[in-house]
């Protein structure tokens, strides 16, 4: 007699509410345990590492302020992604949209340094939004018009954007006084965002991000258009029957999703660096980390505000253990990857039930 065991996944009819809340928390804990094992393998005490990360990110006023600084671009990109992912449009190119937003704002800041501060900064945010939106529209139109898969195209657009920024800062935009560094010249004071006291928190961007999170939340929750997005994502066939245009929905979604990422890019150049730099200097992968932000928030824009603080904290805490435990800067990727994997699986466990099925087979002689 042989016994066959197979793993079967079946859909739950109604996921219990407690499970919907418990699943992400449990996933997070499991992810931390898995990472702990990796730490143990290389001889690092995981509890010490975790407490160092927590201390680094949230344990001091300075750490806390840096956590907020890093959460700003994550929040903007993440909120935009909740919208795209709800329409089941897999925009994984927020990183590129961010870089183009930064590039467009820089073009304006370098061309009109003498404009009054309020005018110039508002215009920079506007062109950053438009730039990011246009960059996001390319995969959107390719998908809606010719059914070209958006995941690959939006990803490829990241590397095109990143090379474009490199071309500009090593080439035509290189600041003459920067002595060979791949930077543009420093922005004039009119193009620099104000910061909160002694911190690096460029609060206009932060307030904009919070406001946009609320706007997107209201949009999804209470407007007809938000309803269309949800239907398009959950049941494209039903959306078509109801006369909703896929083209229109996807284009509007990507204008917002790409535009928000573009605004994040403006915040980085106008609030942190005061110049355009090589792409890794502008963003250590905020656009990719924002995917985790959106997913952890279960595609809720207000939830993304909270999760962006969490992942911003992880970036700051990751820097802290780099110094105190001698771990490489890549360590933070382990956290990102493991958390994303476990949250993905946890999501599924909330919606589905996994059963080990075993059957006994009688040998037929």
């Amino acid at each position: 007699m042989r016994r066959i065991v197979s793993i079967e996944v079946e859909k739950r009819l109604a996921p219990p509410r407690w499970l919907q809340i418990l699943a992400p928390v449990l996933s997070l804990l499991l992810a931390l345990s898995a990472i702990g094992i990796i730490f143990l393998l290389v001889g690092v005490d995981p509890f010490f590492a975790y407490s160092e990360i927590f201390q680094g990110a949230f344990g001091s006023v300075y750490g806390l302020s840096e956590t907020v600084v890093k959460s700003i671009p994550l929040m903007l990109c993440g909120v935009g992604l909740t919208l795209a992912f709800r329409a089941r449009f897999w925009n994984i190119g927020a990183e590129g949209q961010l870089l183009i937003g930064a590039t467009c704002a820089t073009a304006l800041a370098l061309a009109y340094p003498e404009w009054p501060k309020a005018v110039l900064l508002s215009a920079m945010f506007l062109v950053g939004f438009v730039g990011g939106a246009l960059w996001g529209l390319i995969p959107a139109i390719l998908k809606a018009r010719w059914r070209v898969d958006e995941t690959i195209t939006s990803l490829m657009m990241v590397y095109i954007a990143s090379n474009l920024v490199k071309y500009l800062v090593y080439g035509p935009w290189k600041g003459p006084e920067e002595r060979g560094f791949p930077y543009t010249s420093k922005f004039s004071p009119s193009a620099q965002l104000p910061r909160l006291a002694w911190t690096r928190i460029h609060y206009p961007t932060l307030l904009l991000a919070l406001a946009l999170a609320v706007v997107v939340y209201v949009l999804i929750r209470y407007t007809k258009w938000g309803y269309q997005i949800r239907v398009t994502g959950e049941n494209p066939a039903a959306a078509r029957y109801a006369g909703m245009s896929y083209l229109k929905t996807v284009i509007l979604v990507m204008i917002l999703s790409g535009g928000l990422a573009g605004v994040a890019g403006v915040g980085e150049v106008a609030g942190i660096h005061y110049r355009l730099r090589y792409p890794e200097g502008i963003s250590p992968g905020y656009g990719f980390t924002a995917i985790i932000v959106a997913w952890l928030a279960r595609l809720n824009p207000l939830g993304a505000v909270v999760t962006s603080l969490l992942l911003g904290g992880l970036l700051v805490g990751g820097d802290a253990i780099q110094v105190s435990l001698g771990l490489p800067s890549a360590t933070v990727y382990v956290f990102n990857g493991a958390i994303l994997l476990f949250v993905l699986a946890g999501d599924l466990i909330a919606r589905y039930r996994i059963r080990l099925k075993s059957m006994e087979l009688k040998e037929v002689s």
Partner: protein
Amino acid sequence: MREFLLTVFSLSTLQGAVRAGTPLLLGTLGEVYAERSGVLNLGVEGMMIMGSVTAFGVAYTTGNIWLAILLAALAGGLLALIHAFTSITLRVNQVVSGLAITMLGLGVSGILGKRYIGQPPGVRLGAINIPVLSDLPIIGPLFFRYDPMVYISILLVVVLWFVLYRTRWGLSLRSVGESPATADALGVNVVRVRYLAVFFGGMMAGVGGAYLSVVYAPAWIEGMTAGAGWIVIALTIFAMWDPVRALLGAYLFGGVRVLQYRLQDLGVSPPLLNMLPFIFTILVLWMSAGEAMRKHIGAPAALMQPYVREERG
């Protein structure tokens, strides 16, 4: 213009293109198989770099280059099994799962590899020397003076092409990627085929990564794959899911990587040159979007679609 052409078609550029293209080719061959089975694996970058760090570590400790490459394959394969489990068994979003795997690979390789930074390689795989052939003018350096992995990868192109188009296994693989329900009805084990294809893809990515750290560089540098995995994703589409076209594409893209340094003196900006593979990929995707075209070039129809067997009453 003459100078430009002389640089592009110089012997050393062509040789460099083959060497720089080999890790891309290895990764692409694996990804072609994975995607042919219907699973998109965006974890290639992470699997490649795990291969790099494993190979370097094993070569450094044991001095055995082949053991290093073998274990690198295993490291890539193990990471691929996670992706297979999440995307085939759990049926979560393949894109997000692949990205998570890439992050995991970049992070874990960084932690494991810290002790090898700046270390000399334990052993390196050098160019072979075939009597007579290697010494021929032009022909010798162009064809007969590479390291063994270059020849192994070319051999793999032939074998994988043959398996894909001329054997039952290949037929099963293609049918699973084209129409899993039909394949299932014909008695093909969809889940098993997909698992094997994704595992194989991860192994090849691991070997591609190993090539970078024990043959090409040879050294361990954090993040040394530097986006090679993303070029593999692009190349798989550029090659339209075909092993032979993967060879041509890999050497072409490898050539672009080599030329970025050489053409700089002639006023060609490296970043603009580096954009080309990604622009080409979007164009290929766009041109192949039509249904007739898609069938013609062999794009797997069920790519990214998890398979759920309908309950049969």
